[in-house]
């Protein structure tokens, strides 16, 4: 009997072994990271000096003592819900509107406003509370005598922002945070109405300097529409520190003694990745056709297999390269079209790889074509590497960042701007929170700094590509990936999760039907925000006849493939706003409840939850598996100065990323795979509806059989 294990067992072992997740505890004088917002591509703000650590410790002690006294202070002077005063004969009136210069006439509905008085002995007395109406107007009736009493030292109106819902003992609780204080001179209260006039709030504003809908974050620590929960921050900081220290060590070494460090050293310093582990046990396997097909189908890439129109049983996966986006001339990013045949075991095997675009630094013809087959010898191996790298890039930029992060953000902004009293806030916000924060961090670290320096696309090119990919993302008509075979576990898991989500959403709509209908106008406004700020449908703003035949073919090829890849039905009846055909379909076009929109709304809610949870989780947690080894896969291969360009073996390090980019890449793929907080079943913040968790638990075994541990499915996109 042979003692050798088969590849599946080795892969399974390595999967278990390389699973990310351990605690960092390096003692009192161990390096510290202040917060996730202090992460950098280069040297993050790590505190390592013992003196600084001691001072930092003392400051933290001071903060704790201060917080303690603040808590004591608040308990001495609590804000009780009782409303003082008998005769509500006077009113505070006003209007809430956005402060952004483009939205000065846009009302903010259903924000809570409270009117508080403070006595000379510092006790708080609530005098009134109300919500703004759909026009943003609010009226706070109060007892003038109580407000003008000699006991009252000062009065103020306070605007509260709805932040999140949570479950306490099975009961749903709303959490609102004070957003703005509006002091009022007590002596100005003279009866009838006191007008706070138009109160302008910088609340969930849309950026005007981006091509895709993004939220304004002026200062991620102090002036952001959301904050990470403390648990999220603590978990991340503990997880990130070891690899951050590794990265810093590498950067210092590269700077001070580059001759003492190699790419292999860098690779060895990071936790062992799946491919490294497998390579040790089964050399060559991770570069084989079998592994290539397996990872394209069920790995991070979750490739979309487009049926070949002429040859039944054959499929194509297409990774589009630099296309016509602004790019540099140091990195290769040709368009890779891979033809697969589905084997008897249901897994795909590559039969052809078509590369379009430059493969070396000399011939820059963007339309040059190269065909590789298994008969191409070593070049087949090189071509697979190029396709893999392009796949990694496309998956990270298109599927991951656009498909889940940016896609979820556009729904998050619209939802947070509008859903307050509508029960959909309870359904959606737990899944939409924090995405804008991590996207903001990604802007600087990844889009502006790392990717333009480690791949072919420039920052401008990335932005244009993001806009184009967002142009094929829509909830309307979206379906999970079609299952090609029993071995297509990703698609099976995706379909299973989609079923769980849609059934859960159906249940929720049935439970909360009255509330959803009652506050339908919130949905209408969310829809309007969503549609008005959506990007145009891909190519809808391009005159194809003005393109060259090659460009036109590429554009149409992309559109066709993207429609399949992102489940985009281009013939849906979409809205034209400001002269643009908007990619995102409206949730409703009616201010009042409209029966015909009911099922569409359920579909849209399911889509939002799906994108923010399973779809993001899948790519996110497989990043280190598929991009945890620099030579196996990376963001971009350099052309090098040789005429062979990227058609060279892995041993040719001049085409691999340099040492700095290598450590940065491993840092990022490792860091981004470390969620460790914010899961559906763990429900750390008690914000996930128990029904959702219950329904997911029912399928624990089925998911497990497909290689998915439901405990690892994120409840939100927060990394």
């Amino acid at each position, binding site marked *: 009997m042979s003692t050798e294990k088969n590849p599946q067992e080795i892969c399974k072992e390595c999967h278990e072994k390389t699973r990310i997740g351990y605690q960092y505890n390096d003692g009192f004088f161990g390096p510290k990271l202040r917060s996730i917002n202090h992460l950098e591509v280069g040297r993050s703000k790590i505190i390592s000096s013992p003196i600084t650590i001691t001072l930092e410790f003392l400051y933290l002690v001071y903060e704790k003592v201060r917080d303690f006294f603040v808590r004591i202070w608040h308990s001495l002077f609590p804000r009780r819900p009782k409303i003082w005063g008998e005769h509500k*004969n006077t009113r505070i009136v006003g209007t809430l509107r956005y402060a952004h210069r483009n939205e000065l006439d846009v009302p903010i509905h259903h924000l809570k406003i409270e009117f508080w008085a403070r006595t000379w002995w510092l006790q708080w007395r609530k005098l009134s509370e109300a919500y703004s109406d759909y026009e943003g107007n609010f009226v706070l009736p109060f007892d003038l005598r109580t407000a003008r009493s000699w006991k009252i030292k000062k009065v103020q109106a306070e605007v509260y922002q709805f932040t999140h819902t949570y479950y306490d003992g099975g009961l749903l609780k709303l959490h609102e945070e004070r957003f703005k204080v509006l002091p009022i001179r007590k002596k100005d209260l*003279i009866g*009838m109405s006191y007008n706070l006039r138009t109160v302008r709030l910088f609340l969930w504003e849309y950026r005007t300097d981006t091509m895709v809908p993004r939220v304004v974050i002026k200062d991620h620590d102090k002036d952001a529409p959301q904050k990470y929960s403390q648990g999220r921050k603590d978990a991340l900081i503990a997880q990130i520190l070891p690899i951050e220290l590794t990265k810093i060590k590498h950067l210092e070494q590269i700077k001070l003694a580059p001759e003492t460090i190699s790419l292999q050293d860098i690779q060895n310093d990071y936790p062992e990745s799946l491919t490294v582990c497998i390579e040790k046990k089964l050399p060559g396997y991770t570069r084989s056709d079998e592994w290539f097909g397996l990872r394209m189908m069920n790995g991070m890439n979750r490739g979309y297999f487009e049926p070949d129109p002429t040859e039944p049983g054959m499929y194509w996966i297409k990774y589009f390269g630099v296309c016509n986006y602004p790019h540099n001339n140091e990195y290769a990013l040709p368009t890779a079209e891979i033809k697969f045949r589905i084997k008897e075991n249901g897994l795909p095997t590559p039969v052809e790889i078509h590369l379009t675009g430059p493969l070396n630094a000399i011939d820059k013809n963007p339309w040059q074509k190269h065909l590789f087959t298994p008969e191409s010898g070593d070049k087949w191996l090189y071509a697979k590497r190029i396709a893999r790298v392009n796949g990694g890039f496309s998956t990270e930029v298109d599927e991951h960042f656009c498909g889940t992060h940016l896609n979820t953000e556009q729904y998050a902004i619209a939802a947070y701007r509008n859903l307050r009293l509508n029960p959909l806030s309870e359904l959606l916000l737990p899944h939409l929170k924090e995405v804008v924060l991590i996207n903001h961090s990604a802007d600087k670290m990844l889009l502006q700094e790392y990717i333009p320096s480690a791949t072919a696309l420039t920052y401008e090119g990335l932005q244009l590509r993001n806009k184009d990919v967002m142009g094929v993302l829509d909830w309307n008509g979206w379906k999970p990936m079609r299952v090609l075979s029993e071995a297509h576990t990703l698609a099976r898991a995706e379909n299973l999760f989609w079923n769980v989500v849609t059934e859960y959403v159906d249940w929720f709509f049935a439970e909360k039907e009255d509330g959803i209908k009652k506050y339908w106008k919130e949905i209408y406004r969310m829809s309007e925000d969503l549609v008005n700020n959506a990007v145009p449908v891909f190519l809808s703003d391009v005159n194809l006849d003005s393109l060259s035949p090659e460009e036109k073919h590429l554009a149409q090829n992309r559109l066709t493939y993207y429609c399949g890849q992102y489940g985009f039905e281009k013939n849906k009846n979409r809205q034209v706003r400001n002269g643009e055909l908007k990619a995102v379909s409206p949730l409703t076009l009616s201010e009042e409840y409209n029966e015909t929109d009911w099922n569409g709304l359920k579909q849209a809610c399911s889509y939002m939850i799906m994108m923010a949870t399973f779809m993001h989780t899948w790519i996110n947690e497989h990043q280190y598996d598929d991009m945890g080894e620099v030579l196996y896969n990376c963001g971009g291969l350099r052309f090098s100065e040789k005429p062979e360009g990227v058609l060279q073996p892995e041993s040719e390090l001049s085409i691999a990323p340099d040492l700095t980019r290598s450590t940065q890449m491993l840092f990022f793929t490792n860091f981004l795979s470390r969620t460790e907080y914010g899961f559906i079943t763990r429900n750390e913040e008690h914000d996930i509806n128990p029904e959702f968790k219950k329904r997911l638990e029912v399928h624990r075994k089925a998911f497990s059989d497909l290689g998915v541990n439901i405990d690892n499915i994120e409840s939100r996109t927060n990394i």
Partner: protein
Amino acid sequence: MTKKLSLYRIIRNRIRLWIDLFVLWITAKAFGWMLAIFLSFPYRSRMSHNNGIAGQGQMKIVGNPEFPEHPFYAAGKVFPVRVRHASATFLDDAMNCIRSISIKLSHNRFKSPFDIEMNSGQTSLFWSAASFLKFGSMRKEKWGVEYVEYNRLYPEGLKGAQQAVRRHATSFHNVHYYSKTPFLFVGKDGIKRYAKYRVKPFDDEPESGIDNNPSDWDMSNQRVLPHETRGRNFLKYEYEDRVKREGAKYRLQIQTRIAQDDDDPEVFNNMILWDEQIFPWQDLGVIEITEVLDWKESTRMGFSVNNMPKTLGVLPAKSIFDYNSLNYLRAHSEIARKARMWSYWFWGVPPEIPDNDNRNVSDWGK
């Protein structure tokens, strides 16, 4: 929900009332004295309505009153009457001003059995002593622009101003005037009632000067319009000519309602109209002005809410926030009128408003 009666509650409420009454009294007295010392005597000025013209004639109570019978308003009774029209507060008729009528049922400068003062507009710019003092303190007039901050802070005040100003009035005679804050009315039947008064032209001439689409932003701008051709005294001249030509005939009307224990305090709120379907306006008398008084005589006149029979007087107020405190304040500012009279004796009557181009002013010095 009925609260439980307790000795504590009685004592507490009584002490509160005393304190409120004391604050009201001291406020009213202080206000009167401040006006007298800092405005009326040194500047020979009324508090606001300096720019006016007076006339005299007679008023006849209607022959078949439909309002509750009252001995003072006996059917067919004839009173001597003086009226004074004015524009508040500027010395320029062409500005966007509130117009007023003050009625005195006598031919004396002050002494009278019944005075009443009314302004244009159904509602007011203020509603209590507290709001009036705030209104006064936030005037901040500069070249015809005033109450900017007040209008921003108090929407009802702004609305009241929009209703009350009459920029394009063609005559003092064809504006409708309202007493706004109610008065006491105890008729022959001894039933306590509240009463509001108004004056309109006898022949139902359409009201002039109403801006149907006033600006929320520009209400504080009361300046004469660009390219204005009307002079500073055009309304006074028109009234003088009208009286000489055909006289000025008005209809004085009254609105009454029976006092109830559970009346909402808003009944007394001059910003809230009584429903005319339930409490219709009834003709009270007809005023006929046949003679215009000269500037000096007009200026020497004074009106007071204290000049009323006890059964038609000012309603009691409980605090500076009470809607009735507005009339209470008027009643306790008599010292200011006296100081103005003393100033005339001391400094002489201020001169007539000249027809010069000093537009947009509210004091004699400009």
